[in-house]
């Protein structure tokens, strides 16, 4: 709590008081009493300021309350929309009747991924009791997902800068960011490619039925109701003509959205999952505008969440909420390195949970990494450095013994040199002093810099974070010990902690030759979900599979069987494949392996091995895509690349095709 200024002033004060009180008084120096009074004056003032600051920090700051609202142009909202601007109001208040704070700096902790547009995210000044402070700024929302406001960072100081406190006012508010709005044609309202919008409430179902819109005219068949006869046309043609009306039975569509680890890779808003969510949201909104029923199934490697098709506004909002939640998911793997995640998680915890890392509450003993380092047998693939570090105590013993022997040799040499004839004995003591200091530095200071300082620091961080994670995720009291020793558990919990707070982090993609994010189990889950949807289906439905199965072309048998079942029930199936960003879109069928791998985004500057790898990757993706198309083309199931054309429009066109009249005469 004391700054360096405060420490220096205190030291000088104590020195002055010590001199005034402890040194025997002399008659010829009558200023000793004045010196003591001077020291006491400044000390009493210093202690008073210290007490006042401690009262403010310990008792007043915890009483601060934060209220946050996010506004659009009409008022406060509880849900945000991607790509739009919103105004954030954060109010901080103190109850009345207590001490104020002389100087504080409040900084709103901006969520990751949110772009700040205008305004200030900080407030500087004093704070009186009973008054509110307001911080106001505008933000632009990120892609669909969630936005999490953690709270405000507070820094308190006295006016002299002698005392300082930094803390965090936690006030967690999570807002969903829904996909952007689109119109009936599946496009954003400011982009209209076709001028064929139907009137509200009217839909086009080009099948004969009992609606009120005229579909077609045909010859009269005995048994047609007389009210359907078109008399004027019949009089002109001199034969009976019957009117056919449009059917009011809507088309059903179920969207199967892949939310497995393979599509979550990449930064939020630019990964495959965000593209799939965008397509699904566009289709859902466009279909709802045309009063068609849309269902949703979110699946991953483990389970599926299925919602039956419906068409009311509440159902659409429910689907958009689920899609927004899915868009915010992050990949996880137990193979991630703890050393890579630990610094990020610790620095974040220092900002947002400083009160849980205090030494009196969460102590990491300094001797812990020296005496009990992590053993190599608890590591998945220990390196030589890991093995040496696990024997740190032995290394220190060897170092101490070696140092002792060296010291003995040096001292013996010094004694011999000091005893040499003609040697100036007065030089011996200073030289011995210098050598003694060097030896002390060598023994006690050098090891702290030489022997794995980074690992020891990270071990202390690990201990503190393990305590925090264990308490937060309900693993206490034994969870601390578990996370301190088990790398995989700690890695999973660190990823959970970081993704919950929306902190981006990097993960390894491979463990040796094995790709960690293929997620082959999702094919079975998708197949079961599709069969379930077929079982609950009514008449001709469209099933759209928005899934990344390019890496699993040899494991698609369960899915192909489910697709055959769906087709046998006269449903339609369509597959949309997400495409990696920056990868050239595949060309015509039959052009496998011919992709030149023209570098995009890098301007063609990749050379040598990088260029070869890129070309090989592109060729592999194109080959996998064509394989998938070939497998499903046998079943007459179209496969579309999400990066080519307008997948939303394609899906809506396919739904329109389901309304085509099939006339049997």
């Amino acid at each position: 709590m004391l700054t360096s200024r405060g420490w220096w002033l205190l030291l000088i004060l104590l020195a002055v008081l010590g001199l005034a009180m402890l040194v025997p008084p002399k008659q010829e120096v009558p200023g000793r009493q004045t010196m003591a009074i001077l020291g006491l004056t400044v000390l009493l003032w210093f202690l008073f300021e210290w007490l006042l600051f401690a009262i403010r920090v310990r008792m007043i700051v915890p009483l601060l309350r934060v209220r946050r609202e996010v506004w659009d142009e009409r008022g406060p909202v509880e849900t945000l929309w991607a790509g739009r601007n919103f105004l954030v109001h954060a109010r901080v208040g103190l109850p009345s009747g207590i001490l104020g704070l002389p100087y504080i700096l409040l900084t709103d902790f901006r969520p990751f991924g949110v772009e700040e547009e205008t305004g200030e995210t900080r407030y500087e000044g004093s704070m009186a009791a009973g008054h509110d402070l307001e911080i106001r700024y505008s933000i632009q929302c990120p892609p669909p997902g969630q936005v999490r406001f953690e709270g405000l960072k507070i820094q308190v100081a006295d006016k002299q800068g002698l005392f300082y406190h930094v803390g965090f006012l936690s006030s967690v508010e999570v807002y969903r960011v829904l996909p952007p709005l689109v119109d009936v044609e599946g496009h954003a309202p400011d982009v209209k490619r076709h001028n064929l919008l139907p009137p509200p409430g009217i839909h086009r179902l080009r099948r004969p039925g009992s609606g009120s819109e005229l579909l077609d005219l045909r010859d009269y068949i005995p048994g047609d109701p007389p009210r359907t006869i078109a008399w004027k046309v019949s009089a002109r043609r001199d034969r009976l003509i019957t009117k056919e009306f449009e059917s009011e039975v809507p088309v059903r569509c179920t969207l199967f959205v892949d939310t497995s680890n393979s599509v979550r890779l990449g930064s939020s808003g630019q990964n495959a999952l965000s593209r799939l969510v965008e397509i699904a949201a566009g289709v859902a909104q466009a279909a709802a505008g045309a009063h068609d029923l849309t269902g949703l199934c979110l699946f991953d490697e483990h389970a599926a969440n299925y919602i039956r098709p419906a068409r009311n506004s509440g159902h659409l909002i429910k689907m958009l909420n689920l899609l927004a939640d899915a868009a915010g998911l992050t990949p996880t793997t137990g193979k991630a390195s703890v050393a890579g995640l630990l610094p990020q998680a610790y620095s974040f915890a220092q900002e947002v949970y400083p009160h849980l890392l205090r030494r009196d509450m969460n102590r990491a003993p300094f001797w812990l990494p020296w005496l009990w380092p992590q053993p190599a047998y608890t590591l998945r693939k220990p390196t030589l450095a890991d093995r040496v570090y696990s024997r740190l105590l032995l290394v220190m013993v060897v170092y101490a013994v070696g140092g002792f022997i060296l010291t003995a040799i040096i001292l013996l040499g010094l004694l011999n040199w000091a005893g040499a004839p003609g040697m100036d004995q007065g030089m011996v003591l200073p030289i011995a002093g210098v050598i003694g200091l060097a030896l002390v530095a060598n023994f006690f200071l050098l090891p702290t810099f030489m022997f794995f300082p980074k690992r020891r620091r990270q071990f202390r961080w690990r201990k503190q974070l393990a305590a925090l994670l264990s308490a937060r995720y309900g693993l206490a009291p034994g969870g601390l010990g578990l996370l301190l020793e088990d790398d995989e558990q700690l890695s999973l919990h660190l990823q959970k902690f970081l993704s919950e707070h929306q902190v981006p982090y990097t993960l390894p993609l491979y463990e040796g030759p094995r790709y960690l994010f293929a997620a082959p189990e999702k094919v079975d889950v998708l197949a079961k979900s599709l069969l379930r949807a077929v079982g609950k289906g009514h008449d001709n439905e469209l099933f759209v599979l928005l899934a990344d199965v390019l890496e699993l072309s040899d494991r698609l048998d369960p899915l192909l069987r489910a697709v055959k079942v769906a087709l046998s029930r006269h449903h339609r199936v369509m597959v949309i494949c997400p495409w990696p960003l920056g990868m050239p879109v595949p060309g015509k069928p039959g052009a496998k392996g011919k992709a030149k791998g023209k570098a995009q985004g890098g301007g063609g500057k990749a050379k040598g091995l990088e260029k070869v790898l890129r070309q090989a990757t592109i060729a592999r993706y194109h080959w996998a895509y064509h394989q998938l198309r070939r497998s499903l083309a046998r079943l007459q199931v179209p496969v579309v690349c999400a990066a080519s054309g307008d997948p939303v429009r394609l899906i809506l066109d396919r739904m329109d095709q389901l309304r085509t009249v099939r006339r049997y005469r």
Partner: protein
Amino acid sequence: MKKSEPHKKTEKSAASPLWERLGWGGGPGVYYLVVCLASLALIFLVLAEKQAGSWSLLPIGVGLIGLLTRWSSAPAMLLLAVTVCLNVPVRFGRLASPFMDVLLCAATLAFVVAQYRLQCVQGYIFPADQRRQDGQKSQGLFSRWRHNEGTRQRRAESLVTPGEIGLLALSLPIWALLGMMVWGWLPLNYNIGFLPWVWRAMVFAWAMGVALLVAAGFFDYWRQRHFTSLEATVYLQDMFWHETRREQRRLNRWGAWFRLRRQRRRERW
């Protein structure tokens, strides 16, 4: 309701004119400058009255250097300088006057407080964030220990009000009188065999220690009484871990080893 306003940093580079660096640019920071200069003048007068001779110039020099160069240790050094002046042996006698003592103490305290507040307005009020310092490019010698412009947080000049100057001025004699009273209360008699001044120092240290202990205990108790459930869980968990860490370490290491062995066997098959 106070609203956030764009934080206006008063950028005063090393090449700015002298009067701006001294705070004579017309902002409220000039109040503290006036207090500093007035207190230096008063210190000089009192020391001259006490017949300190040319030593009276020592605190003035330290104070002026601190004002010109924004030396952060200037107040502490001024305290030392005044102490040195008071320890100068007297040849021609020195007037012992309680009023002068009060005046000297009040003036010294005024300089200390005003100079620190001036540094907060012109220099920095918060300690530098070392993590941001490490990210800045080094700028010459000892750059690591200097505050870079990007990490500096000053107290805005607009927050300085005449009211706080007045409060400071009114409180100065009170602190000086309190210091004098405490000195008078410290006993020389009733000791248990120590030298009087040693006994007085012991009583003082003991009283300070007890007061600090009571205050620290009170604040700790207050904080623990207002723990949230998460804080209490972390606290108790830490205590539990410190008591049982050996057993936990043994069990969890064995568990981690067993899990890894099972994984390796599965991968082999």
